């Protein structure tokens, strides 16, 4: 298959118009012969039927559709059918970046609605059109904070998702930015406000805290934000949209930048990508924000319409002075979140939050009663994820669970040796009582 709808007769006419006799002659007008490659050493092309059967073979080599108790940044939430149906419409799916506004009102309004959803969820004033993922969104938030404050010292929670920390380290590698990490309290699993206060002075550009943090613990964002702002540092909140149905919004506790991973809203796990990152800021930071932004305006006749706006921040205009290099972002993934949020509504999102908390609590209580499992943080207030210390063989546990099509907890020791013998469970609304009971039963038995 090659998807070329041109006949030999067409081709002949085209060559005549160009004034060459064949492709060889045409290419020789541009490319010196010595630079040409003879042929590509790839397999022969395939028919559609062959292709499907090849990918079915790949598919069968995966163990899929497991009852998933693993999270750590990517979560197994239910995606309603309406999401795929709407974002899958070719008007959205195959459209280009909406540079020609008048012919792209659908995409532009979709982004505007998305920005509105993010502002509503986070309580912030301005959202961009999306970032690549949660990790890059946090890294760009850090760069934004440095730009806006003209200071270069950042305090970062050690309980930020470790993948995000790695990305931040990569992004800041060649820039003159100093990063100081703040640890969590070993009893509460959360950052201690006095500790933060002790590390802060007016040379700090921003404090970056995730809540629920990597270990699932809900941080006291109100206090941490206040502590940061007392020393004129910006406060960057890394949040999980699913938790915002119940928890205070970043806007309410005075965050300057709210960012996070959006996969949890309407996107399948897909091996961790593609997802999207969201970023929302206060009005004061609007012109400093990276990425595309859609604004509402009117046309010549005064009719409501949408355009890409504040573009003089962006690379296609400002080149090396742009607020970021981002161009293509994650439009479809963010649109999925928009459809998801609209479908659930604010009451639905609140119920989603509650179901996550209550199912996680049910699982936590069950596991707490199993011999050999002790909560790592005795006083942790958690959302839908929590950590246990265990003296059992973690590999063996996960092997046994896998036999029953359960994806067991994450072995934290494999991520950070400090957390050897610790396992982290995620429990979303999708897990049933039967699945949780089965999990507990196997944990007891192994």
């Amino acid at each position, binding site marked *: 298959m090659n998807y070329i709808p041109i006949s030999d007769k067409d081709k002949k006419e085209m060559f005549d118009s160009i004034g060459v006799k064949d492709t060889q002659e045409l290419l020789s007008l541009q490319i010196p012969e010595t630079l040409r490659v003879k042929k590509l050493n790839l397999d022969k092309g395939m028919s559609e039927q062959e292709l499907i059967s090849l990918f079915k073979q790949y598919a069968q080599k995966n163990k899929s559709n497991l009852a998933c108790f*693993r999270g750590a940044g990517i979560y197994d939430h239910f995606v309603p059918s309406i999401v795929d149906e709407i974002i899958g419409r070719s008007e959205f799916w195959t459209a280009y970046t909406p540079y020609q506004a008048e012919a792209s*009102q659908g995409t532009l309004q979709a982004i505007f609605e998305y920005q509105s959803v993010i502002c509503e969820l986070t309580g912030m004033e301005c959202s961009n059109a999306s970032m690549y993922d949660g990790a890059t969104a946090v890294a760009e938030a850090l760069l934004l904070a440095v730009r806006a404050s003209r200071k270069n010292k950042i305090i970062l929670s050690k309980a930020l998702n470790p993948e995000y920390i790695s990305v931040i380290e990569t992004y800041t590698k060649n820039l003159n930015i100093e990063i100081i990490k703040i640890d969590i309290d070993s009893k509460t699993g959360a950052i201690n406000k006095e500790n933060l206060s002790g590390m802060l002075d007016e040379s700090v550009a921003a404090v970056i805290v995730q809540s629920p943090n990597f270990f699932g613990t809900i941080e006291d964002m109100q206090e941490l934000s206040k502590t940061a702002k007392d020393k004129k540092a910006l406060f960057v909140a890394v949040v999980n949209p699913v938790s915002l149905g119940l928890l205070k919004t970043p806007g309410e506790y005075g965050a300057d930048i709210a960012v996070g991973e959006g996969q949890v809203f309407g996107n399948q796990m897909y091996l961790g990508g593609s997802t999207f990152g969201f970023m929302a800021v206060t009005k004061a930071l609007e012109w400093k924000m990276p990425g595309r932004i859609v604004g509402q305006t009117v046309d010549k006749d005064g009719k409501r319409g949408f355009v890409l706006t504040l573009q003089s921040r962006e690379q296609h205009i400002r080149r090396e002075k*742009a607020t970021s290099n981002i161009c293509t972002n994650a439009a479809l993934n963010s649109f999925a979140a928009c459809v998801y949020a609209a479908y659930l509504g604010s009451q639905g999102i609140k119920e989603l939050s509650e179901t996550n908390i209550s199912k996680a609590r049910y699982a936590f209580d069950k596991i707490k009663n199993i011999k050999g499992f002790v909560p790592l943080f005795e006083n942790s207030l958690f959302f839908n994820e929590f950590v246990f210390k265990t003296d059992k063989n973690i590999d063996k546990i996960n092997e046994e669970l896998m036999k029953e099509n359960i994806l067991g907890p994450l072995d934290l020791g494999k991520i950070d040796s400090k957390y050897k013998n610790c396992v982290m469970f995620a429990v979303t609304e999708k897990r049933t009582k039967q699945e949780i009971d089965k999990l507990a039963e196997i944990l007891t038995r192994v």
Partner: protein
Amino acid sequence: MYPLGSCTMKHNPLVNEKIAKFEEFSSIHPYQNEESMQGSLEIMYELQKDLCEISGMDYFTLQPAAGAHGEYTGLLIIAQYFKNKNEKRTKIIVPDSAHGTNPASAALSGFEIVSLKSDENGIVSPEKLKEVLNSDVAAMMMTNPNTLGVFEKNIEEISKLIHDNGSLLYYDGANLNAVMGIVRPADIGFDVMHINLHKTFSTPHGGGGPGSGPVGVKAFLKECLPSPVVIKEDNKFKLYFNDGKKSIGRMKAFYGNFPVILKACAYIKSLGGEGLTQASKQAVINANYILSKLKSKVKVPAGNSCMHEFAMSLKGALGGDIKTLDVAKRLLDNGYYAPTIYFPLIVEEAMMIEPTETESKQTLDEFIETLLNIIEESKTNPEVVHNAPVNTSVKRLNEVEAARKPKLHW
């Protein structure tokens, strides 16, 4: 039709979409053990391997999420390479015809940008390059064919100058659709490159993503690649993590935009080596065909032939005070998405046309006729062109007001 220069809006095959929806792929958690995701890892491995063959590079990472993210990755790799060698190099040369993401990515990577003026034919001149080359230069970024749709024919000389200077050559693969099976970037002197899977390899744009911007390197840069990459050992596929000190680290969480990776892999498997070569050749023929029909009416800085796209200047071709923007808007009235306009920046009143190989001759003919009609109309009936579009859901939108008093949500 979406004749968008630099964007390669080709047909998005349905079968690839169908395969990407298999639950065996969509329901995989990134922290499952490798044993339980062999199928997904194999697809990634296959794509890494095929991209190596297509580009001539030795290794690929699939982690970057888009073209600009790929550039950023590539430039960090270059910075890391010199750091590992204990060599201080602070500058990146970027031709003035380059896309805005090039200088922006270089700045983000901590480099200073040296802008290089193109010669009168819109290509890089070795003479001018010599003037800016010195021991501070880490690398030069090039798009080849460049953004005017012209193959940089002095590439061998440029490559020699760059490498003799101890610098590296970066390839922006946005225009790879022109040269598959014709030229391999690694063979003609490039050391690092990114590919836009959402352009050359047929995955849909989705109104602005998700994309994927894999980065390929020559063997001497292997240890700088981000982690993890997929390797094959004893017939098993594994995620391999590079040494933390020598590698740039991680560009995004997890491994890459998997559905995009899968669709690109499926595309390559469907076409095979011969099909990919045919695709590039036809893309070049289609662009030259349009060029042949327009060149008597407009200025084409590239001259009489081009690769898979060409930039033209509408300056002097239009009536009264009609601008390229007006022509673009009038195309919308006629049912076409407008070509890229005002890019590259070095062409005045630029319009940049890339038809791709997947349009029929009939479609191309209709497009040519429409464009010629509009150019004529700009002289005989300028008001109509100036007032366009009228057939879209809204008329011309007030962008100035949108930026002056931003309303960014309900």
